[in-house]
């Protein structure tokens, strides 16, 4: 009832358009009579009247006409919009499939480094023997071939190295940390950035090892040192803490040369001092009991 009246009012005002034609008069009459009598018949009448008496200005208010307007405009407007988005979808699907391929290689790298890590854990269980390092070192070749595959995939889309960097970043950091640890166990020296690149086959002009990834990898390696020292002393290598402490102090001093910003690398570097302190403690414990006296 309420809405019926409202509609009536609506039509009523429409009909009072300045450009109104003679036909509006009968309508007004009919409304007058309707107000007093049969309200229930009103909607029917309006439906019939609505179309012919629509003025151009009021068309936007009228549901039927505005729908028609939308239908007329929409295809034209959205086809230009649509074209671009079809292209976008194709482009994004392409980069998505490229990303999937990269992720697949990254997963293989991950499982390879995991094998390496597992076999390298044996260094904590006995005094260092060259045989222990054979197994982890066997993975290096595989790792290199995986990075070669990654380089080939990325060569297809030059300049996009860093777009997908996040997908294999942490795997690379782990790989660097393991390689650096093996290198240190063998030579007692730090694996430098060009050497790490060499080992991973990342020394091509367009596919290099990111310096930050390298540094984070080195930080990961240093996390391993306190545990190594503790276990070496336990199996009777009392000279180990001195060597590790010397190396670690130098490494920490070298890291202090870097101006870092508040990122992950900074966090890892800040954590390094606790590892260093732990190594110092072990060295102190050994030294104060005269266990390392023979070689110092």
């Amino acid at each position, binding site marked *: 009832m309420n809405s019926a009246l409202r509609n009536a009012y609506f039509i009523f005002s429409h009909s*009072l358009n300045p450009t109104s034609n003679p036909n509006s008069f009968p309508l007004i009459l009919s409304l007058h009579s309707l107000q007093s009598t049969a309200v229930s018949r009103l909607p029917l009448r309006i439906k019939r009247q609505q179309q012919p008496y629509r003025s151009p200005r009021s068309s936007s208010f009228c549901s039927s006409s505005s729908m028609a307007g939308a239908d007329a405009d*929409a295809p034209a407007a959205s086809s230009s919009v649509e074209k671009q988005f079809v292209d976008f979808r194709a482009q*994004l699907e392409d980069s998505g499939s490229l990303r999937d391929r990269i992720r697949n290689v990254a997963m293989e790298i991950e499982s390879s480094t995991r094998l390496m890590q597992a076999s390298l854990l044996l260094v904590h269980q006995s005094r260092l023997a060259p045989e222990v390092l054979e197994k982890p070192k066997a993975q290096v070749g595989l790792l290199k071939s995986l990075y070669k595959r990654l380089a080939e995939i990325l060569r297809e889309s030059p300049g996009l190295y*860093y777009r997908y960097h996040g997908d294999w970043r942490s795997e690379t950091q782990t790989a660097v940390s393991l390689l650096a640890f093996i290198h240190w166990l063998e030579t007692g020296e730090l694996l430098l950035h060009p050497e790490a690149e060499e080992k991973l086959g990342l020394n091509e002009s367009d596919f290099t090892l990111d310096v930050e990834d390298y540094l984070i990898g080195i930080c990961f390696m240093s996390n391993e040192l306190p545990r190594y020292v503790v276990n070496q002393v336990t199996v009777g290598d009392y000279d180990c803490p001195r060597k590790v402490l010397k190396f670690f102090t130098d490494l920490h001093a070298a890291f202090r*040369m870097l*101006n870092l910003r508040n990122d992950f690398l900074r966090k890892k570097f800040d954590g390094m001092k606790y590892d260093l302190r732990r190594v110092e403690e072990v060295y102190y414990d050994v030294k104060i009991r005269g266990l390392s006296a023979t070689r110092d």
Partner: protein
Amino acid sequence: MFYATGFHKAALMAAKPKPQLLHKVAGTAVESSPKRARTLSTQSSMKDAFAKYAEYLNNLNDKRERVVKASRDITMNSKKVIFQVHRISKQNKEEVLEKAEKDLADVTTRHVSRLVNELQGTDFWKLRRAYSPGVQEYVEAATLCKFCKTGTLLSLDEINAVLLPLSDPSLEPLQINNLDYILGLADLTGELMRLAIGRISDGELEFAKKICRFVRDIYRELTLLVPHMDDNSDMKMKMDTMLQSTMKIENACFSVHVRGSEYMPLLGSDDPGSFLSGVPDIEL
């Protein structure tokens, strides 16, 4: 020793921004020369290597800082353009949009151009997080201007065509990537919502309806793209806000539609007096 002092002097004379690093590099050179005979080669080679990393990181961080600053300037000035567009009304449409376009061109030449040199080669993607917010805001401002003027969507190719002349031919031109464009579009709906509400209260209902259809089109198209975006979660959040904005416009249009008859005659002031002059007719 002469070598060492020469190096030190050079360090002092060198550019100011990072005196600390240069001093440290010089320091190691001074220290290591007498000691070198005694200490192991490891230490100095480690320090040399880290001096290189330090330089690399300093350059990278300086560059990132410059990009972030440019991005902030782009954001700030693009916001101003957007505010300018919101000053639109029935009477001053051309004038307002003209100023907005002038300001936008100013943003392009003064601030967006600063990114061109910094984002050569792989840096374009490496530093994306640093410049992305600014570029998104810029896309938002540019598309809003264009929509108000022509009622169409400014495409990525059109934006990139504007950016082409910014760089000299020897450099790679800066081209906005489709991800930032899409994220910018997602933000655009929020501004369009404000615009639509403003237009409705100003009586420009046809314009508001046009905005409504446009926003729906964008929302529908973006729905298909969400799963393919690089950073999915960010986009999902934007989609939620977008739906909210779309619904706000729809609700406003609904209100006008339903109650339109009640205040339509007053709003339709372009043919004044139609309601009031009509009243006596009925009474008579």
